[in-house]
């Protein structure tokens, strides 16, 4: 009896999820034409396409990852290869965990006051990317750390026995073997950045022009979708943008998960 209730609850959760995805795709896919994807918006988004936002949605997370990846992997390497568990590592991990729990609006506030206002960078790709990089940093650190930890110690020992230094071992043995896990973390980070709206609006702005440099403001798809929906500009375009958003996020998550599974399967052989 109780089991049926529990089963019903689980079923409800799955049904809701499937409904959300199906609803958006059904209402949005008809609007996703090649023209839609490749032309610029007209009339503040009422007509035309979403090409500049596609560019923004690709450039912003990529730039953010480019900043976060070296920092995150470096942190993970330091925590696993160069230190033993002590006060310092606990403090660093605590910092990472806390950073992970901060809501995106606070990141938006910080990015705004620090990058846009104080450093006078204005609303631009760079401000947005730096803010997103900090948001994504804990994810990169956690997944990289797991990936590095899963490299068998035997590999390191053989490398040392052949005369390699610690840094050489890290660079030539540990990191190449941890690469799939690190890439998974990178992909998850990109996925998260694509859906991020609050932090992006306050730092990258919402210009509909094509960005020509990192100091240009951009509008990402999620920001565009939000503006379309809230200002009631165009429901069809909103649904279509949402459909593109959802498909991108789903694809990215699928890729990340299948990589993770292959990585785990290879490891456990």
């Amino acid at each position: 009896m109780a089991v049926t209730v529990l089963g019903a609850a689980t079923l409800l959760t799955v049904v809701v999820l499937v409904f959300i995805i199906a609803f958006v795709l059904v209402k949005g896919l008809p609007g996703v034409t090649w023209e839609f994807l490749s032309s610029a918006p007209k009339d503040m988004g009422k007509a035309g396409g979403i090409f500049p936002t596609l560019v923004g949605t690709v450039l912003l997370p990529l730039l953010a990852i480019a900043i976060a990846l070296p920092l995150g992997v470096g942190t993970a390497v330091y925590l696993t290869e160069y230190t033993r568990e002590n006060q310092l590592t606990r403090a660093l991990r605590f910092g990472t965990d806390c950073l992970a729990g901060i809501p995106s609006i606070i990141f938006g506030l910080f990015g705004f006051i620090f990058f846009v206002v104080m450093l006078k960078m204005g609303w631009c790709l760079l401000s947005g990317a730096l803010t997103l990089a900090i948001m994504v940093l804990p994810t990169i650190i956690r997944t990289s750390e797991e990936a590095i930890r899963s490299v068998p110690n035997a590999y390191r020992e053989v490398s040392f026995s052949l005369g390699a230094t610690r840094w050489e071992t890290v660079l030539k043995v540990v990191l190449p073997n941890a690469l799939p896990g690190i890439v998974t973390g990178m992909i998850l980070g990109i996925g998260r950045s694509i859906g991020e709206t609050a932090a992006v609006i306050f730092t990258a702005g919402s210009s509909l022009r094509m960005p020509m440099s990192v100091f240009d403001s951009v509008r990402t798809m999620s920001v565009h979708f939000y503006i379309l929906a809230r200002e009631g500009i165009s429901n069809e375009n909103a649904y279509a943008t949402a459909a593109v958003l959802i498909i991108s996020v789903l694809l990215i998550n699928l890729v990340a998960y299948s990589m993770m599974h292959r990585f785990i399967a290879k490891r456990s052989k």
Partner: protein
Amino acid sequence: MRLNCETVAKGVLTVVAFSALASLLLIAVFIFKEGLPFMLKVGLRDFLFSSTWNPQVGQFGIYPMIVSSLYVTFGAMVIGAPLGIAGAIFMNEFLPRSVMRIIKPTIELLAGIPSVVFGFLGVMVLAPFIRAHLGGPGLSVLAASVILGIMVLPTVISISTDAIGAVPNSYREGALALGATRWQSVHMVTIKAARSGIIASIILAMGRALGETMAVIMVAGNTVKVPHAVTDPVRTLTANIALEMANATGMAREALFATGVVLFVVIMILNAVAMSAIKGRGNK
């Protein structure tokens, strides 16, 4: 030559490793730097407990927003926590592993859907439904609670699943050996053992619900008023920050940062409590 490379590498890595901690401190410093002077100027009591929010004339009471955030978060937990915990229990204890391997990633996909999409669906599907059947404008505490409840489901499910999965099999076997039925062993033994992890998942989910901005802006109605019914439109703390930020200057901007300080502190406390509960359990 080699040794030089080695020390340089170690030095660089040490500096890099502080990037997360440094970012955290930077964020805390700047948010507090912008928000704290305001709170001291206006007085904590006036800021937190006055009901008038009218930045143009210098009124900065955020009481209605605090109450609204609390109601919406509470509502989200009422919906999300039972569903999530039930789902976690069912998946872990009563579902064959093969099925679970399909369903678990599916639910984690929920976590990847951008919050603005949830908000939009709330506006297009949920709000008209509420307006038609329960009255009011539709954009309301109820709508926000339902949408937020769905959004926190993945958090509750995944952390509760971890907690339940960490209960040693010997506990279950012991209960069954003593004659308990499957369900009895689950609710009298396994859940009790996983209790701290499950509570941690709820606290973490509360933090997420409190901090959610975009979805709430779209479905909660954004009226600055203390709600008297679940069908009343409200504005949460996060929505207040996001909506007013674009046009805020001077003291109004400082007020929004002060709101950010309040949010930051509360959510940090919630997360710290939840994480110590999770880690404490692991050390037993």
